[in-house]
């Protein structure tokens, strides 16, 4: 009996403890686990009148959409994949693969930004479709709600990303405000080139009034995208749409993905008007010193009145350390970029006359004398002063010693974007502003000049653009006050003058690579001759002998390479995704 009682007590005890444990465990087994990372409701918080989290998401939209163009493509400038420069790398660089045509749909080139841009578009769409959940009470200086400006910035970034895609692939799928979920059908077809341009243009038109104007920018909002940027994007999109590759020169005439079916001169007019709109804002002007454009912050924070849209990179020494001549051991310098002889030869004399002009006074045995000052501001030539000594790119010189260290292949190094370290002593680099400028006023002027010349011929307004740039560059006005230009040029001569001006003014700013494509001159630029450099021999007497050398044979498979191939994986995953011609 006693045992029996004991047994009942223990069983009851176990049941009791068991019930408590079960109950405790029940509490410990939630249907929604706690403590996870933020959800979308935390990011676009309905209580957050300061929008702290939402603005961090906007920062992510910027980050996702805006690459830092300095040494962007596998460590090189995109321009090193054009006829302006080659990579100094001793192995096969990513830009060399682009320039020599070593890419395909299955193994895309290093500038294949398909996935990256669609990520940026998705991010922007998340912001665009969710930001109005946030009761943001910030106001712009003009009393308008800042929330509309922020949303427009995201729309700008989306349009910008589409334009990046259109430059590379032609027409691409336009997703509108769709944020795909895992169950959505993402097998959508490509939109036509025309649709894409129209979309970009209409987005820019829609958002321009809700954005900050240049005058509203202050120390806090500095770096946010402004109305000027939206108008500049619109101008550039229209300029591309009017360009020969798409407008009349469609490589696959009846293919709406690669351009328009026929030429329409009015596209040039639209482009000219769009550039004129930016000029009419009167918010921008040329900076007196060409070199300062790239190393000063924009107004009102800095003195740079020319910068319209840029990616904030901040201050550092990376451009110098990566690209400066390789002989400065203490300062560092990896000599990554070797500008070509073709680029150097494009710079006129300080009189504004091309070196091919018999009247220019160009001396092949003293080639860097009396040249357009933009040459020295863009390219290190042998003998240029840097860090308190002349740059030595002659054979065996400090900056071209031979052997295995990375050094110039052409006898030149890139100088643009660097701080004023010419006579710096001690020979060290200090932090310099290296924001990468996407749109600046000089380019808008050139856009305007190009479109106007194509639409209505070389008017005085066209001349004025070139003159203003040449004047700023430091070219001598000359007796006719035309800074080396001829009076009464025809449309074709003016076209060549504008194209050359654009090449030298905008070198290394990711323009040349796209310009030779939209002008449909890439086959000629790449395939005519191998890219040239100089082999400079210094005699024992100190005399310099300049021998041209070929540095890279580039290949452009005309016409398919006017567009990048759509990544192969994308085509197989989506039966609606049409591949570009011949890829």
């Amino acid at each position, binding site marked *: 009996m006693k*045992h029996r009682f004991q*047994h009942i007590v*223990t069983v009851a005890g*176990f049941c009791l403890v*068991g019930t408590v*444990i079960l109950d405790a*465990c029940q509490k*410990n*087994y939630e249907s929604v*686990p*706690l*403590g*996870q*990372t*933020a*959800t*979308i409701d935390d990011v676009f918080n309905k209580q957050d009148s300061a929008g702290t*989290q939402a603005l*961090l*998401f906007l*920062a*992510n939209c*910027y*980050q996702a959409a*805006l690459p830092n163009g300095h040494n962007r493509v596998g460590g090189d400038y995109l321009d090193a994949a054009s006829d302006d420069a080659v990579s100094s790398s001793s*192995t096969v660089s990513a830009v*060399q693969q682009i320039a020599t045509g*070593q890419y395909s749909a*299955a*193994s895309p080139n290093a500038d294949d930004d398909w*996935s990256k841009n*669609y*990520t*940026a*578009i*998705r*991010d922007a769409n998340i912001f665009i479709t969710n930001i109005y959940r946030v009761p943001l009470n910030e106001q712009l200086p003009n009393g308008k709600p800042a929330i509309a400006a922020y949303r427009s910035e995201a729309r700008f970034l989306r349009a910008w990303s589409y334009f990046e895609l259109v430059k590379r692939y032609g027409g691409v*799928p336009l*997703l509108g405000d769709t944020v*795909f979920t*895992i169950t959505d059908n*993402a097998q*959508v077809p490509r939109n036509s080139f025309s649709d894409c341009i129209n979309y970009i243009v209409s987005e820019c038109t829609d958002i321009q009034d809700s954005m900050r104007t240049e005058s509203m920018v202050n120390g*806090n*909002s*500095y*770096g*946010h995208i402004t109305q000027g940027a939206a108008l500049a994007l619109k101008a550039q999109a229209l300029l591309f749409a009017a360009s020969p590759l798409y407008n009349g020169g469609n490589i696959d005439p009846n293919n709406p993905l690669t351009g328009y079916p026929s030429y329409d001169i009015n596209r040039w007019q639209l482009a000219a008007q769009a550039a004129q709109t930016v000029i009419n804002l009167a918010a921008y002007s040329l900076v007196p010193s060409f070199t300062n454009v790239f190393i000063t*912050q924009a107004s009102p*924070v800095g003195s740079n009145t020319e910068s319209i849209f840029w990616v*904030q990179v*901040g*201050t550092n020494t990376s451009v110098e350390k990566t690209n400066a001549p390789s002989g400065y051991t203490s300062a560092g310098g990896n000599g990554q970029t070797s500008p070509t002889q073709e680029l150097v030869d494009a710079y006129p004399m300080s009189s504004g006359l091309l070196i091919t002009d018999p009247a220019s006074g160009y001396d092949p045995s003293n080639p860097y004398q009396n040249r357009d000052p933009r040459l020295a501001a863009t390219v290190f030539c042998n003998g240029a002063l840097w860090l308190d000594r002349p740059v030595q790119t002659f054979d065996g010189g400090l900056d071209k010693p031979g052997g295995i260290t990375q050094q110039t292949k052409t006898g030149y190094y890139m100088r643009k974007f660097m701080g004023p370290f010419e006579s710096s002593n001690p020979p060290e680099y200090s932090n310099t502003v290296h924001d990468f400028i996407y749109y600046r006023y000089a380019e808008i002027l050139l856009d305007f000049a190009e479109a106007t010349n194509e639409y209505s011929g070389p008017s005085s307004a066209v001349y004025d653009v070139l003159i203003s740039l040449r004047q700023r560059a430091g070219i001598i006005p000359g007796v006719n006050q035309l800074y080396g230009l001829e009076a009464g040029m025809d449309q074709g001569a003016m076209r060549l003058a504008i194209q050359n001006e654009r090449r030298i003014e905008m070198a290394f700013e990711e323009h040349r690579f796209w310009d030779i494509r939209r002008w449909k001159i890439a086959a000629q630029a790449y395939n005519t001759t191998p890219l040239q450099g100089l082999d400079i021999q210094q005699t024992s007497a100190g005399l310099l002998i300049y021998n041209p050398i070929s540095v890279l044979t580039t290949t452009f498979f005309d016409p398919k390479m006017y567009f990048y191939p759509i*990544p*192969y*994986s*994308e085509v*197989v*995953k*989506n039966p609606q995704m049409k591949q570009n011609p011949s890829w």
Partner: protein
Amino acid sequence: MALVLPGSAWAQGRTVAGIVRDSYGPLPGATIAEVGIPRNSVPAGPKGEFRIVLKGTSNTLVVSYVNYVRQQIPLKGTNNIANLEIKLEQNTSGMDEVTVVGFGAAKARTTMTGAVSSINAKEIEDVPTSSIQNALAGRLPGLVTTQRSGQPGRDASDFYIRGVSSLNPNGNQPLILVDDIEYTYDQLSQINVNEVETITILKDASSTAIYGIKGANGVLLVTTKRGVAGRPKFIVRTEAGAQSPVRTPNFLDSYHSALLVNEAYNNDGLTPLYTQNDLNLFKSGADPYGHPNVNWYKATMAPVALQANADLSVSGGTHNVKYFISGGAFTQNGTVRKFDADQGDVNADGVNSNYFYNRYNVRGNLDIQASKNLAIRMDVTTRYMDINQSSNVNVLGDIYNYADYHPFSAPLINPNGSFAYAYDTQSQLPTLNALLESGGYTRDRRTDFNTLLGFDEKLNDITPGLTLTGRLAYASQQESVLSLNHGFDVPPSYHYDPVNQSYTLNTGPNSGGYVEGNWVNSGYTDLDIQTVNAQIFLNYDRTFDKVHHFSSLLLWNQQTERDDAATNLFGQIVYGQVPQKYRGYSLKLGYDYKQKYLIDFNAAFNGSDRFQASKRNGFFPAVGIGWNLAKEKFFGELFPMLNLFKLRGTYGIVGSDVALGNQYLYQQVYNSGGGYPFGASQQIGGTIYEGSLGNNNVTWEKSRKSDAGLDMNLFGDKVSSTTDYFHEYRFNQLVTPGNVPLILGIGLSPSNVGITTNQGWEETLTYKSTVGKIFYSLGIVYSHNKNKVIYEAEAAPRFPWLAQTGHQINQPFGYVYEGFYTQADINDASVAKPNTATPPHAGDLKYKDINKDGIIDQNDEQAIGRPNIPNTTVGLPIKLGYKGFDLSVLFQGAFQYSLGLAGTAIEPFQSQWQPIHQRAWTSETASSAEFPRLTTNPTTISSPTNYNSNFWLINAYYVRMKSVDLSYQLPKSQLPFHISSARIYLSAYNLLTWSNVGKKYQQDPEVQSNSVGDAYLLQRVLNLGIQIGL
């Protein structure tokens, strides 16, 4: 009746005393009975001793014990016998075998319907390896092991039950349960084998279904030893062993290396690096400082390192309280040489930067019979260990790495005693001995603590055979990493120039790094996990009318795991992670009629909070049936030699909740990241970005498993055979779909879309017999499986041969080798070549142009070879017993797998020069070459890093003499004092290896494929031990 044999009359009243033991020691609890009078039986005492008075006339004893071969002992003579020694042999797959099948249940082989294999831990007790899983190789059918490394403390084998079948790389690990508490691979490798009683693997659906969670990968069960009532029984065991590598890499000396360097330079059209004078000096060794000749492997690694092990256990108790308490210490040294003469450490400061592993195990298992019906159980285990390695140098990687050390880079030490450095390399590292002598260590210190509190309450009042069991277990793991270093890692070193006898200080690639700072230590917590597991179950086991046997189980189980030092997506350690939880209900119903017709039904209903609430629960049913034909009368008459002939089959569904990466895949999370700068000063704020797209539907991975088996015992259990065929259809696997366009703009979470199959068969065959006084047994343990990817949401490939679907999981892809390019091939534009910046030369590897486009590129890759995990493994256990001597040998082999290595394992100028490089292609040896032309260019078509091909991938196999154990049990009569048993044993691990891998690679056949091949070489261990029982 008067004609009774004379002898028999004498036999009555005869007393026989002695002990029962096996080859490891006494067997307390063994049953000694008189043949013919089964009721006259006695159990053996704590030291195996017994005393029986014979009543019948058979003059024969029969001795039996669970899991041992029943033995009949004819008694000689007619007198009393005082010290009879009876030795039982373990029954690896006999009729009486009882196998633990989880949750306290055990089943005899005769009534099992599932596919289960088990081993008594005694069988592997003497194998001199610290990790249990290494000792299991080749012993259990269906268990596939690969030992990737021999590094002390990190040498545990990966193992899989019936191979791999999930596309989820984390989803193939079996569930490991030690006394029903879940362990990780790492934890299992730290268990002291002396604490273990049995190891069981559950392979099919019916035996794993009650585990639900992760049952899909099979279950490995370990039970530990428990006390037996009686006087305290002490067992002391100590052993020491010598380790040496299974193979040592064969590297060329300076002269032969320099010849090959010159050959490569010549091939590339460069001026040879070494002059004839250099070569002469390398050959003659006349200039040991200007032209050194150092084999960095031999200079750094000692031929032999020691390991030692000591265990003490005591067990015993009374009827009410039983205990088993054990403590063990294991130490294993690395093979790095000592560079300091007297202190016994690796370096002069007394800092040990050698590899080593120290482990201490403590276990206390306590059973209390609190009342007639209530038994309480309390287990406490702790493990504590250190794994050491050098902190400023990856010794193993650098030994193989030609780019860091050439054999002629530096002398071991300069003539003035200063350190030398590899001045002719890019990295200019001080010599390996300099780094080791001055460097510090990185030490992982890990502590594990487990407690288990349990009770068993017999509920016979409610109905006989009903038991209520509860268990509450707590386990914690903590690992912290401590490093001790100099302020600067690199010691001062000098290049000695024997011509002008000058010394040049090494400024290194980072100038200024040559001043040795003070010792500085740093550390962090690597692992901090606490797990709480609670189980309550009702057991019902009863036989009605002696023929109807019911057994059933109803279980509730819940686990919470909290990982306090988990790493987040950025690899940073984050604290305060939420717990991972699961909950399960399991049911098991079993019935057998006279052990002849068997049926089992198992089911589990499990929930895991890795899945969203509505997708959380999974139901996993399984059924098993068996028919023991040998119990049928007609069968017995037809086949009298068959003692057991049982057909069985199971079918069911089991699951796995292992999710790749993010713990909660169904949640759409947003992460914080590096910032985009705004404002005048461009201060970088943060950003918030979207994480991988959440998948609300994510749920259990499931596996439909079927298994058919045949168990046979023939000729009085002399021959025993177990055969299993299995097929598995694994679906709902979590894989990241590869067919979703990138315009989605975000990474995808895995979805339950993958499908694979896996099938194969297993055979265990054992023959045992005695010849005179010699007992012997021979066996075969064979396992074969092959999986196949049925669907993995793969994007349609460019060409059909590029598809992974339809091949095995982790099928290697690469080019198909067709010979070497000849000069004619190079000149012939119609011969396919790669379209790269490095054009091929004569003597480079030529590959098949599968799509016939004239270009060798990714489109020409196809499935080559096999995955790296063997499809077929074989074990051959051999045992011999004669009086006190026992010999046990296990051969283990693995077949049908591929191994390919790259980088520092084989490629010129990355790897040290090896004999195979001497057989490289030259224009003279073109027909007999075994290696492509030597070149300084690392990116040619011949490089396995750039162009993986079946030239580099070996269809590998190996056979090892995996373990050898020779022991001698001293006769009890010769033992002094109160020693009840004493045994001396000589054992070996990995004694001999045969493999075809050595033809190409200077590595062990078990290293990971596609690695650089600088694994710590597997060790061969020779070990001598003694075990004493008191």
